[in-house]
C-alpha cells in the first residue's frame, strides 16, 4: 500500500543510481563510437580526419580477429564448463557428512579472495615455469621431460588458472543450494528403489537449476572482461595464441596508440558481449522469475 507521497519519494531515491549508471554507460560509449570513425593515432598527430568504416574494416579483417573471438569463446565456455561440473561434484562431496567441514570450507573458498594478478603470477612462476616450477620438479622427479605449459598450451593453461579462481565460487553457491534439498524426498526415492544416478538426474539436478543459472550469470560477467591473467602470463602469446578480444583491444590502445582502431575494436567487443548478454539475461530472467 504505497501512498502517492511515497511513490514520488521512491522515484527521487532511484534517480541517482539510474542517472549515474546511465551517464557511466552512455558518455564513454558515445565517445568510443565517435572515435571509431576517426583517423586518430597518437603517434601520428598530423594525420586526422574521418575514417568512415575503415577502422572497423581493418579490425574485422585483421587475420587475428577470428582467432581472438574464438579464444574468447574458448575461455568463457571452458571455464564455465570446468567450474560448473567441478563445482557440482565438489558440492556433492562436501554436502556429505565428514569431519572438519569448517576447515575444508576455509581451504576451498580461499582462491576466491586472491587477486587475479597474484594468482596468475603464482601459477606462472611457482608452478608452470618449465625450469623451476613445481610441475617441472615433479616431472624431473618422475624422470619425465618438463612441459612448458604457457609456451605450448597457453589457452589451456589460462583456462586452468581462471578455473582455479572461480571453482570456489561455484562450489560454495551450489553447496548452499544442495543444503536446502529436501532430504525426505531423497529418502522416499531411495526406498522406492531409485538408483543414485536417477536420484541425481531427477531430484538433485532440477533443484540446482537456479543455482547453476546464478553461477553462469555472475561468472560470465567477470569472464568476459578477463584481462590481468592474460597480461601477466602470456601477454596474449606466443604470437597471438592466447589473445582474446578484450586483450586485443587493450593492446591496440595501449601499445599501438591507435585510438581510432582500438575504439572500433571496443565497439565490436561491446556488440559481441551484448549478444552474449541478451542470451544469458533471457535465460536468467526465465529462471529467476519463478
Amino acid at each position, binding site marked *: 500500500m504505497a501512498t502517492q507521497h511515497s*511513490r514520488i*519519494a*521512491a522515484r527521487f*531515491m*532511484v534517480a*541517482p*543510481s*539510474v542517472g*549515474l*549508471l546511465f551517464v*557511466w*554507460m552512455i558518455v564513454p560509449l558515445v*565517445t568510443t563510437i565517435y572515435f571509431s570513425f576517426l583517423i586518430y593515432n597518437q603517434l601520428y598527430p598530423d594525420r586526422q580526419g574521418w575514417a568512415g568504416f575503415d577502422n572497423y574494416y581493418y579490425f574485422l579483417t585483421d587475420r587475428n580477429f577470428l582467432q581472438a573471438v574464438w579464444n574468447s569463446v574458448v575461455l568463457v565456455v571452458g571455464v564455465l564448463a570446468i567450474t560448473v561440473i567441478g563445482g557440482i561434484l565438489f558440492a556433492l*562431496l*562436501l554436502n*556429505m557428512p*565428514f*569431519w*572438519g567441514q569448517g576447515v575444508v*570450507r*576455509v*581451504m576451498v*573458498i*580461499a*582462491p*576466491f*579472495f*586472491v*587477486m587475479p*594478478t*597474484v594468482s596468475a*603470477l603464482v*601459477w606462472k612462476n*611457482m*608452478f608452470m615455469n618449465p625450469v*623451476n616450477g*613445481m610441475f617441472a620438479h615433479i616431472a624431473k*622427479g618422475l624422470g619425465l621431460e618438463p612441459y612448458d605449459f604457457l609456451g605450448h598450451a597457453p589457452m589451456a593453461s589460462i583456462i586452468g588458472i581462471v578455473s*582455479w579462481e572461480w571453482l570456489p*565460487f561455484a562450489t*560454495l*553457491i551450489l553447496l*548452499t543450494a544442495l543444503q536446502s534439498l529436501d*532430504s525426505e524426498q531423497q529418502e522416499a526415492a531411495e526406498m522406492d528403489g531409485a538408483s543414485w544416478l536417477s536420484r541425481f538426474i531427477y531430484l538433485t539436478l532440477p533443484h540446482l537449476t*537456479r543455482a547453476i543459472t546464478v553461477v553462469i550469470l555472475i561468472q*560470465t560477467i567477470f569472464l*568476459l*572482461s578477463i584481462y590481468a591473467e592474460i597480461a*601477466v602470463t602470456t601477454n596474449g602469446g606466443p604470437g597471438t595464441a592466447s589473445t582474446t*578480444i*578484450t586483450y586485443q*583491444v587493450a593492446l591496440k*590502445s595501449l601499445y599501438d596508440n591507435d*585510438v581510432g582502431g*582500438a575504439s572500433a*575494436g*571496443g565497439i565490436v*567487443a561491446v556488440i559481441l*558481449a551484448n549478444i552474449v548478454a541478451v542470451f544469458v*539475461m533471457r535465460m536468467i530472467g526465465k529462471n529467476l522469475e519463478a
Partner: protein
Amino acid sequence: MARKTTTATKTLVTALAWGLGFLIFFPILWTILMSFHSEGDAIKSPFEMLLSPWSFESYAEVQTRSNYALHFFNSVVISVGSTLLALVIAVPAAWSMAFVPGKKTKDLLMWMLSTKMMPAVGVLIPMYLGFKNMGLLDSLTGLVAVMTLINLPIVVWMLYTYFKEIPGEILEAARMEGASLRSEILYVLTPMAVPGIASTMLLNVILAWNESFWTLQLTTHDAAPLTQFIASYSSPEGLFYAKLSAASTMAIAPILILGWFSQKQLVRGLTFGAVK
C-alpha cells in the same frame, strides 16, 4: 541428516574432502611457505626448500624495493571508499525498489545488471583520455569514482534482495503509528537491514580490492593499489621467487583474513538472494 552413514564412508569422505580442499588451497599455502625462505632456497626442489632454514629476508627486500604501506593505504581507500559511496547511492534506490515497486522495477534491475556486461575495453579509451584531461590519472579520487560506478549495480541488486526479505507489514505498522518516511527508514528499516548491508559491504570491498583492469590501466604509482604493486614483480630479474611470494602474501593476506572471518555472510550475499 536423517540418513545413517557408516564410519567407513565418513572416513572415506573425510579423506577425499580434505585431499581436494588441500589441493585447492595448496598454491596459496606454497606461496606463503616460499616467502619465508631465501631466494637461493626457493628455486630448489620442493623438499629441499621445505627443509632449508627459514628467513625473513624477502620481506625486508620487498620493503626496501617498494612502498608497501602506500599501496596498502591506496587499496584500503579505493575499496572502502568506493563501497561506502556506492552504499550511499544504492540504499535509497534499493529501498524504493523493494518497498514501492513499480511496473518497471524488474526491468530496471535487469538493465542495471546488464551494464556490468559491457566490456571495460569498450570504454577504456574515452575513460583514459577523459581522466588525462581532467588530471585524474593516477589519482585516488578518480579510482574511487570508477570503482563506485563499477560495483553500483551489484550493490543495488544485493541490497534489493536483502530488503525484499523484510516484511512490508512492519513498515506499514510504523506508518500507521505516524512514523515519517525518514524515521521509518532510520529507525525501522536500517536496524533490520544491517546484516544485509554488512555482507554487501564485505563482498564489495573484496571485489574492489581485487579489481585488476581499471586499477592497472588508470594508475602508475601515486594512487596505485596492491594490484599494481604486485604487477611490478611480474618481470623476472635474476632470482625473484621468494620476493614475489613475499609480495603476493602481503597483497592477499588482508583480504584473505577478512574473507575467512566472514565467509558465511559472503556466500549468502553472492547469490543475489536467488539461492537459499
